[in-house]
């Protein structure tokens, strides 16, 4: 018989003093944290070897509740802090939790550069389409036309596709699921944690308080039902037209490829430098890459 969920989660919470947590009833953050803990438990990681890093936001409050090495940084900067940790102690398992604003708004530059470096860590981006902590302002993922306290006539800006952005910025693993699909989310997190290199998991989550209410999406349950309705697996999506995909959220693994991992590559540089040599790379200075352009 499976170990009950309560027991698994209970192994990782900081029971003394840290509760009640700050999240609203129906918030998706707790569901993502639950998936994350079950994934870590399934991999059997030692608590001492796990570093949970976050930025600032409702989602970024997660680390304080769990019994790992935990680091609650500044808004948008979590990945850059994590980079320093992982370079110094590459054996640690570094997991970074961020909100959508944290990851691709204020922290967008760090996000794309983390993707291109391919350091072995996982970014878990909880995308609730809104700045929750500050009370519901538009975020870089707020859908066009949606209402927020700073887009009172509808959001004009085009939203980012976080998992897609990660893929095009060079992340070697990128996946997405929702808080409705807990089993899938847990599975994707496990795969991301196992992946050697930089992995991104985007978790679509509900913020009933500042997003759902204003956009007439109903309560937390209705928002979960919406997630169920709009989700479409990457496999199915592959056979769908752009028109059919409009308004849908593609879930599953978008990218999963092997590439040299940064801290290991850096070790090669250290060894060569110690001997005063240059490092041999697979690509040469002339091998620039660019997307093929259409001819006009």
């Amino acid at each position, binding site marked *: 018989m499976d170990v009950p969920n309560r027991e698994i989660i209970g192994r990782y919470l900081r029971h003394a*003093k*840290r509760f009640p947590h700050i999240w609203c009833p129906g918030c998706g953050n707790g569901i993502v944290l639950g998936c994350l803990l079950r994934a870590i438990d399934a991999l059997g990681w030692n*608590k*001492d*070897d796990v*570093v949970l*890093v976050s930025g600032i936001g409702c989602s970024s409050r997660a*680390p*304080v509740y769990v*019994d*790992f*090495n*935990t*680091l*609650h*940084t*500044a808004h948008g*900067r979590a990945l*850059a*802090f*994590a*980079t*320093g*940790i*992982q*370079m*110094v*102690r590459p*054996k*640690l398992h570094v997991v970074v939790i961020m909100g959508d604003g944290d990851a691709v708004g204020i922290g967008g*530059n*760090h996000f794309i*550069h983390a993707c291109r470096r391919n350091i072995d860590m996982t970014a878990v981006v909880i995308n609730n389409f809104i700045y929750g902590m500050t009370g519901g302002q538009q975020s870089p993922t707020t859908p066009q036309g949606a209402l927020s306290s700073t887009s009172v006539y509808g959001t004009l800006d085009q939203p980012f596709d976080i998992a897609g952005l990660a893929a095009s910025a060079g992340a070697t693993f990128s996946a997405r699921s929702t808080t409705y699909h807990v089993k899938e989310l847990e599975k994707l997190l496990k795969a991301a944690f196992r992946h050697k290199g930089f992995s991104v998991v985007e978790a679509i989550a509900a913020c009933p308080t500042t997003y759902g209410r204003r956009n007439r999406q109903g309560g937390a349950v209705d928002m979960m039902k919406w997630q169920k309705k709009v989700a479409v697996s990457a496999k199915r999506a592959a056979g769908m037209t752009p028109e059919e995909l409009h308004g849908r959220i593609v879930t599953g693994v978008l990218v999963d490829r092997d590439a040299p991992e940064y801290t290991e590559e*850096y070790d090669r*540089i*250290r060894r060569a*430098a*110690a001997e*005063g040599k240059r490092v041999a790379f697979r690509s040469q200075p002339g091998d620039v890459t660019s997307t093929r352009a259409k001819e006009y």
Partner: protein
Amino acid sequence: MSAEGSREALLQGNEAVVEGAVAVGCSFYAGYPITPSTEVAEGLAARLPATGGTFLQMEDEIASIAACLGASLAGAKAMTATSGPGFSLMQELVGYAAIAEIPFVLVNVMRYGPSTGLPTSPSQGDVMQARWGTHGDHPIIVLTASSVREAFDMTVKSFNLAEKYRSPVILLLDEVVGHMREKVKLPAPEAVERLERIHPSTPPEWYAPYEETNTGVPPMAAFGDGYRFHVTGLVHDRMGFPTQKKSEIVQGTNRLYRKIERGFREICMTDGVGLEDARTVVVAYGSVARSAQQAVEEMRDQGKPVGLLRLRTLWPFPRAAFERILDGVDDILVCELNRGQVYREVLRVSRGRCEVHKHTRTDGEMITPAEIVRALRERI
């Protein structure tokens, strides 16, 4: 110090920073190129990987300081170097390092500002930004250097103070010191003092990362050492967990100040020329102190009772050094490459006990010894 094992080299101030960092055991650098600090990055890009350390060029200065703080939390001695525009970008996380008590060294080779300013011209315009650049009340340690050899020594000092006090330390150089070349004798590696942060001696279950201690400095574990603790920029209790309790807020903030105040004697460094009998004292720091020293020696050779008080630490402001001279002098002349940032501090600490004047330049040029002599002659 024995000369054995020491070596002579013709170095730039920025290169001396590199040598100092390597000598004191810095193993992590993250930065973003900017004139006139870039030689620090270039030097460490070559040196650190060869000694098993890490050099990273990050996407910007905010990422650079963040990576340094992460590295320090993982146990490394970390530093970054920058100049005006980059220093401005780093400010939020200087405050993070102060409240989360993360040791690290930030070298700011000052250039003329604000904004892009005069990228290759010297200035000492960041004295107040180094003190108050990040938001909120916080203590900070800011050192400076006047020569290439001193750039080496102060880099070593910066790391040692950072580790000892669990505090960010800013080393404020100016473009002249950063770029000038001097022949220097560097100490043998064994002769370089290397302080390490205090590691907890308690078992992990008793570890309180922000506990009260005699010195005010709590022991610091590294991530991955088996002490699973929480670090946050929120005001926190002794366990590192966020708090809004008045008593814990006050206790935490007071300890931050107390740990630095207890170290004043060691942290606040000055030296001088002719302070025993001077009636007029020139106050200077950085490259300007070199011109000031020449001017003062010239005047003393002519029998004039002038002296030099050279500031090696800018913050905490070395008030005690002023207390020692204030009753015996008629005038103080503060010379600096800004519109009077240290001058205002000297006015504050002198509280009317003597006249305080300034000689400043903000045209992108150095202050020469001749100018200082002229300024002194106007008074004596």
